[in-house]
């Protein structure tokens, strides 16, 4: 087990460096001088542009910039946005909001997908199973921005059950609707993988063995079956995190949430390369670490997956 975790960790390091380097290269290829348009109505003087370029080290080769950036990142110095705010401040304001949004969304997904998915796996081709399959496929087919709009309009504007947009403090109650919207598209995959693994597990030897040992049915399903069903579901959940993080850019925009997705989108528009690079790096690290943890949990649940 330790050997597996160690090997995973070793593989994780080059992937992390590579992914952040790719992201860095993409961000710094953004066209346009970030400083030219910063002086309001008048054109910026060349001296100002030169001074700012030097201050942020943009005159150095890209590779050097990346290494300096990595060094700063490791020492916890995230730098400043081009308008002089500390990027760490920007992150500490945006990240908790997005993290809460993501957690609420995952709770909604897991509760709904697990109850419906497991039930329809146990009672295949029943009414619940067929209805759930169709509903989830239809919801899966709706682009997230359409779902977000309709939900905002119907629940927020027409019926007035929730506030259409989220207030700056982003209380948890107001985040439920955006989180549910985020959950809808992703939930279908989780539900289907749970249904498939439950259905497969029901005919397995280990389940027959457990039954023949005389365990109660609740223990057979609740412990023996669930242990085997959890690994694939966890994997999907880890990988779907990418879709969740991407979806936040759109959902945060529509519901006016001041989170990471919104900050990244606005920073791209404003040519705030350093902010974009840092925020995206934070997101990538977050995503990779979650998947590393998922891998390790899966290896604990299912020893066979350690050899892969």
């Amino acid at each position, binding site marked *: 087990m330790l050997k597996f975790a160690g090997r995973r960790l070793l593989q994780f390091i080059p992937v992390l460096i590579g992914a952040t380097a790719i992201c860095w290269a993409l961000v710094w290829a953004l066209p346009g001088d970030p400083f030219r348009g910063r002086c309001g109505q008048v054109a910026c003087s060349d001296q100002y542009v030169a001074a700012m370029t030097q201050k942020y080290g943009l005159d150095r080769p890209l590779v050097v910039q990346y290494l300096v950036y990595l060094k700063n990142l490791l020492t916890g110095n995230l730098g400043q946005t081009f308008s002089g705010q500390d990027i760490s401040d920007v992150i500490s304001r945006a990240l908790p909001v997005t993290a809460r949004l993501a957690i609420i969304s995952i709770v909604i997904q897991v509760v709904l997908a697990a109850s419906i998915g497991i039930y329809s796996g146990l009672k295949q081709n029943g009414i619940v199973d067929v209805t759930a399959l169709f509903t989830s496929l239809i919801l899966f*087919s709706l682009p997230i921005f359409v779902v977000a709009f309709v939900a905002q309009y119907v629940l927020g504007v027409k019926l007035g059950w929730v506030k259409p947009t989220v207030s700056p403090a982003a209380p948890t109650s107001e985040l439920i609707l955006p989180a549910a919207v985020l959950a809808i598209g992703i939930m279908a995959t989780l539900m*289907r993988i749970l249904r498939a693994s439950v259905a497969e597990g029901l005919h397995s030897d280990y389940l027959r063995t457990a039954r023949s040992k005389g365990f109660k049915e609740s223990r057979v399903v609740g412990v023996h079956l669930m242990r085997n069903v959890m690994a694939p579901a966890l994997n999907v959940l880890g990988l779907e995190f990418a879709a969740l993080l*991407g979806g936040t850019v759109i959902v945060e925009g529509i519901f006016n949430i001041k989170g990471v997705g919104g900050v990244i989108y606005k920073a791209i528009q404003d040519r705030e390369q350093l902010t974009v690079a840092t925020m995206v790096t934070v997101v990538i690290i977050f995503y990779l670490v979650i998947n590393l943890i998922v891998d390790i949990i899966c290896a604990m649940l299912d020893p066979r997956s350690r050899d892969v």
Partner: protein
Amino acid sequence: MSEPLADEMAAEVEQDSPVHPATVSRAEAEANDTRSHGVWIDAWRILRRKPLFVISVSVIAILTVMAIAPWLFASGDPNKGDLAYSLKPPSPAGWFGFDINGRNVYTRVIYGARASLTVGFACTIGTALIGIFFGSIAAYTGGATDSVISRIGDMLLGIPFALAAIIVLSTLTTFDTPNWQVEIILIMTIIVFGWPSIARVLRSTVLVTRNADYVVAGQALGLSGSRVLFRHILPNAVSPILVLSTMRVGGYIATEASLSYLGLGLHPPAVSWGQMVSDGQPYLRTAFYVLLFPSIFLAITILAFVLAGEALREALDPANRK
């Protein structure tokens, strides 16, 4: 991170029984050929009787014709607007109503099919070809090549896809970029960040079949590496890739729509559903039809591909065959 995605897992389930039984001699190889045709014919027989598959494939066919020859379905220029008709509700003159510039929503929805389907098909074919290429090389050569390809794939998959697309598109395109260039950049981005998942499925399939008796026998007989790969190993990997790809088409179409919605995809005079939804957003309360109809078309298109993929997966699953 080495575990496949959900749909890949579903796709992988059905590789358990080799489609291609062991062969050595030419005669046997031919006999075997008819059997591997048999699998597809079996699948076709199952699919033909599935109403959902027939309906979704018909929808895809109609949409394809719509994309190739939109003038068959709607007369008039999708960009011609008459301000007298601004935000007019559906009527015999315009079945789906008119947008803020008085353009016919029905005509625009029909012309919008092209952008979505082009992205959907091009990305699917591109990711499949590149994924198959690198996946089979990784699995067949093994060793350092395998590690390098697999780690590069991990790196690309480590970047959340939507974020990557947003960054690339805002990096490489401006409002002046011609639409065909935007479209090519969009397709290339999806392919670059999308091939690793196909490569992963292919790699694991090939690893399973690589040590199968018939492959070892082929090698023992002195068949060249490429012949073993193309004639004996790859045919087994086709069905999971086919299923996975069909299910992915909808995802690519949704991505194009989302990016156009964010203002990063196609821009006027090109017509795309995502852009129409984005344009219709401010008039949701006064003229919901401007937003409703492109959304419905988008959802139906994605649903058709998902259902077709689903039916294909069931039909190709050995567990469902007698």
